[in-house]
């Protein structure tokens, strides 16, 4: 039997040789060596590494995906790690964050804002994704605390300017409280026995009534 050709040897990388082929390989050093080299080659191909895409590949791909509307930036709640929380909780959080933002805005636009803002730094509202419900709740609590701090600063700044800021624009405040009441009522419907939610609703209703009285008083004084 003559030497086995390369294609036959390539087959024997995977397949069992026929009797004559086996006998030949056993007796022919050249064919045995070539078969061994083919086996090495196949083994080396199996262990070829992954390849890093060219630099800037993601940026190009991202632009294409955006142009096709396949991706978008995550919403605020996803960034807060609250994407899977119940809708009532998200509504309540929205209010806290909105009012917190209002407080920040007031501080920022007020005299001496930079000094006061320095005290608030290190308390970012938007953070990395939460890993659990407890984590999300803790982030929510911190966001609420940030709001409370900002509101305290807001009142402080307003007092510096010679007036109670909460009285400065009672109509806007009343509109915000209306929104808060609606969200609080929705929350209580979802969890009727929750003491925090009931307390929030009661406080909000009381504050709304107080604001309404204030608006009414201003109108009487104007006349």
């Amino acid at each position, binding site marked *: 039997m003559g030497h086995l050709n390369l294609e036959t040897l390539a087959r024997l990388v995977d397949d069992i040789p026929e009797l004559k082929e086996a006998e030949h390989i056993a007796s022919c050093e050249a064919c045995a060596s070539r078969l061994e080299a083919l086996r090495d080659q196949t083994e080396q191909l199996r262990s070829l590494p992954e390849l890093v895409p060219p630099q800037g590949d993601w940026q190009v791909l991202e632009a294409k995906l955006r142009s096709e509307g396949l991706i978008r930036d*995550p919403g605020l709640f996803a960034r807060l790690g609250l994407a899977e929380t119940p809708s009532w909780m998200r509504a309540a959080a929205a209010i806290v964050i909105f009012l917190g933002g209002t407080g920040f805005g007031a501080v920022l636009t007020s005299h001496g804002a930079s000094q006061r803002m320095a005290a608030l730094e290190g308390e970012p509202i938007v953070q990395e994704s939460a890993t659990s419900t407890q984590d999300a709740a803790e982030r929510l609590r911190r966001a609420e605390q940030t709001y409370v701090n900002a509101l305290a600063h807001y009142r402080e700044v307003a007092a510096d300017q010679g007036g109670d800021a909460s009285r400065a624009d009672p109509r806007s405040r009343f509109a915000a409280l209306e929104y808060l009441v609606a969200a609080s009522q929705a929350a209580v419907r979802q969890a009727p026995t929750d003491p925090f939610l009931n307390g929030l609703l009661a406080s909000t209703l009381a504050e709304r009534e107080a604001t309404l009285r204030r608006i009414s008083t201003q109108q009487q004084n104007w006349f």
Partner: protein
Amino acid sequence: MSESQLIQQAADGDARAVRALYDRYAPRVYAVVRRIAGDDELAQDYAQEAWIRAIRALPSFRGDARFSTWLHRIAVNAALQALRKAETRRKREASPPEQIPVAPKPGDALLQRRLERALDRLPEGMRRVLILHDVEGYTHDEIGDVLGVAPGTSKSQLFKARAKMREMLTASNGAAQDHGAEAWGI
């Protein structure tokens, strides 16, 4: 975050989740596409096409197979389809093997480079089968499904491809030895 959560968010269009999946799987996708394409520039286009198809199809991913397997199959199909289209515009001819230096031991970067370059010079039909079988681990039945050929044809192409690779690598070894130490200067 678990992979299934990441996939769900990516399916909803969350750019950060898509980026995370890309970071995790881009090297694997690019590797298979690059080897099938046999060309850097084409590979980038094909890989991006594969990603776009995958992200578009994500909402239909049910988790029956592993995500990596699912994505890999999309990448292979995208590259093969793109190549078929390209074939109508041009005929690729295998050029003579370059003089590639001999590697001192198996498994190092130089040997991998020699293999990659030899793969690039295989005729397309052989290269596809060799990559799918010997690099990616597809069976002949799977190759038959993907390429639309009989398993016997896949086997025959594989043996030819292995033999051709061996010839090219042997020729490059001989050339490198003829050139002595200078041949190492890549």
